[in-house]
């Protein structure tokens, strides 16, 4: 375990030793430079090992079991839920529902809360910088239930336009959903302020924390939000698990999303009674070992300290923006570094992002190219695609240098 040297500084060298994959070469002699953590982060051996160990020594299905393994597995599983709850400042673990990913968490709200609360004439307010996961579930429900969707626009430097947002709130949306951090622009939205405005307008507030929870302190009580969706795989945890935090009263009133084992209290041939929270929303065998890994991941991050992680990433993005802007032809999207997480999406003259990413890959540099599941945003930007480099706690300034050198190499190919 890499422990921070001082309260505010990450020992990135030590951290990198925790991540086995970072030792990898992508081809012979080509060292991996992983700049794709916004798509999914790598995993420290603490997390990988927690899951292997669990399978090797105490695996069993959870709940309802009386035997020793079932009790141990259940205790480990519920302890993971407790730590995830604490990680986001939830009052009670019962407000944390384990899902497959952030996407399912949002679908759960759209389906369950949506069906119970939305209909013709209603409005759901999103923003122009949303990921498909916070657009398509609402579009699906809108076409079924007949409500309308509006998208709050951005300022010229691609931050949320609070004046326009306020104006749209006057139309009294029933729900406002927005990302805390854009996965393309890096924009960090003023969640507490936006939530307060939305609440004043009578709306329920759903925050997409897929990009923020991994990278900064996110506390649902301080932010005063109603729902928070996030995924383990972006915060050093395993694939296959995410979470929905929900305000107690809302979760309690909501009908179940899926039916099956675990989510019931009682079933008869003609009717069923749903279980208490959070089981009500967890139908079937849950992602058990993945919860163990999720717990280990939040432990890992907490030990290092989210403020230190955020500070490291802030230093990284400042340096990256500075250097990127010096490369002729590069244009970076999104606001200035101070309003941004560790995400830099850019174009390089008229070289297609696929070509950029491919040439970088031959140098071991893993970046993403495409619409990053934000097609409407790209349409708004007038671009079919961008190249995106994203940073996490294990990235080093030298890796930014490699990226920059790589971009000069791309320029040469297409000179």
């Amino acid at each position: 375990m890499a422990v921070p040297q001082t309260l505010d500084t990450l020992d990135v060298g030590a951290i990198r030793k925790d991540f086995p994959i970072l030792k990898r070469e992508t081809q012979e002699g080509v060292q991996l430079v992983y700049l794709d953590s916004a798509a999914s982060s790598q995993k420290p051996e603490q997390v990988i090992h927690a899951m292997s160990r669990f399978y090797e020594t105490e695996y069993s299905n959870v709940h309802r079991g009386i035997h020793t393994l079932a009790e141990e597995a259940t205790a480990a599983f519920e302890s993971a839920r407790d730590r995830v709850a604490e990680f986001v400042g939830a009052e009670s673990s019962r407000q944390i529902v384990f899902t497959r990913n952030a996407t399912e968490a949002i679908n759960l709200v759209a389906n369950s809360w949506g069906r119970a609360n939305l209909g013709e004439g209603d409005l759901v307010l999103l923003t122009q910088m949303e990921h498909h996961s916070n657009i398509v579930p609402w579009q699906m429900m809108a076409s079924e239930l007949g409500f309308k969707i509006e998208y709050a626009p951005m300022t010229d430097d691609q931050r949320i336009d609070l004046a326009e947002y306020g104006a749209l709130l006057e139309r009294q949306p029933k729900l406002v959903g927005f990302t805390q951090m854009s996965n393309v622009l890096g924009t960090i939205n003023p969640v507490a302020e936006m939530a307060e405005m939305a609440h004043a307008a009578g709306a329920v507030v759903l925050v997409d924390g897929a990009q923020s929870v991994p990278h900064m302190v996110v506390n649902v009580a301080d932010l005063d939000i109603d729902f928070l969706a996030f995924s383990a795989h972006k915060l050093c945890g395993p694939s296959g698990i995410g979470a929905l935090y929900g305000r107690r009263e809302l979760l309690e009133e909501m009908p179940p999303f899926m039916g099956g084992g675990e989510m019931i209290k009682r079933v008869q041939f003609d009717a069923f009674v749903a279980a208490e929270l959070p089981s009500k929303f967890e139908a079937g065998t849950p992602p058990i070992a993945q919860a163990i890994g999720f717990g280990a991941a939040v432990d890992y991050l907490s030990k290092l300290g989210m403020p230190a992680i955020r500070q490291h990433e802030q230093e990284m993005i400042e340096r990256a923006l500075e250097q990127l802007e010096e490369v002729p032809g590069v244009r970076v999207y999104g606001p200035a570094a101070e309003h941004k997480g560790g995400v830099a999406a850019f174009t390089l003259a008229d070289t297609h992002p696929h070509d950029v990413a491919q040439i970088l890959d031959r140098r071991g540099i893993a970046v993403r190219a495409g619409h990053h599941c934000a097609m409407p945003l790209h349409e708004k930007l007038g671009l079919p695609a961008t190249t995106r480099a994203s940073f996490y706690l294990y990235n080093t300034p030298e890796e930014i240098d490699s990226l920059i050198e790589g971009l000069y190499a791309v320029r040469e190919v297409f000179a």
Partner: protein
Amino acid sequence: MDDLYREQIIDRYKNPQMRGNLDPHDYSYEDDNPLCGDRIRMDLRVDGSGRVTEAAFSGEGCAISQASADLLTEKVVGMSLDEVKSYTKDELIEMLGIDLGPVRLKCALLSLKVLKAGVYGLDELEEELAAL
């Protein structure tokens, strides 16, 4: 230079030989790859015996998609429609002479998809192409 970006690919991308539109044409089709915004249109003229006499492409996108379209458009001139139909993705890949991962393969094959869809309708192709 990077082997994926052999001189021929970059050269064809920068200086395409077959760019343009044919109006009128006997066959024309356009499609795109929404993932990356690649877009290709191909126009063909065919003589009485069903042989391609002229071909042109237009569109935009990455080097691979555009170079592939340019090379394929050139290749197709002189082929019979039956030869076009039986032209395989492996032949195209061989002609490109580069080694492609699944995402870039879609870029490279967009032009073939457009060509074949133009010549005999999209339905029969869906299966083969969607699997790429």
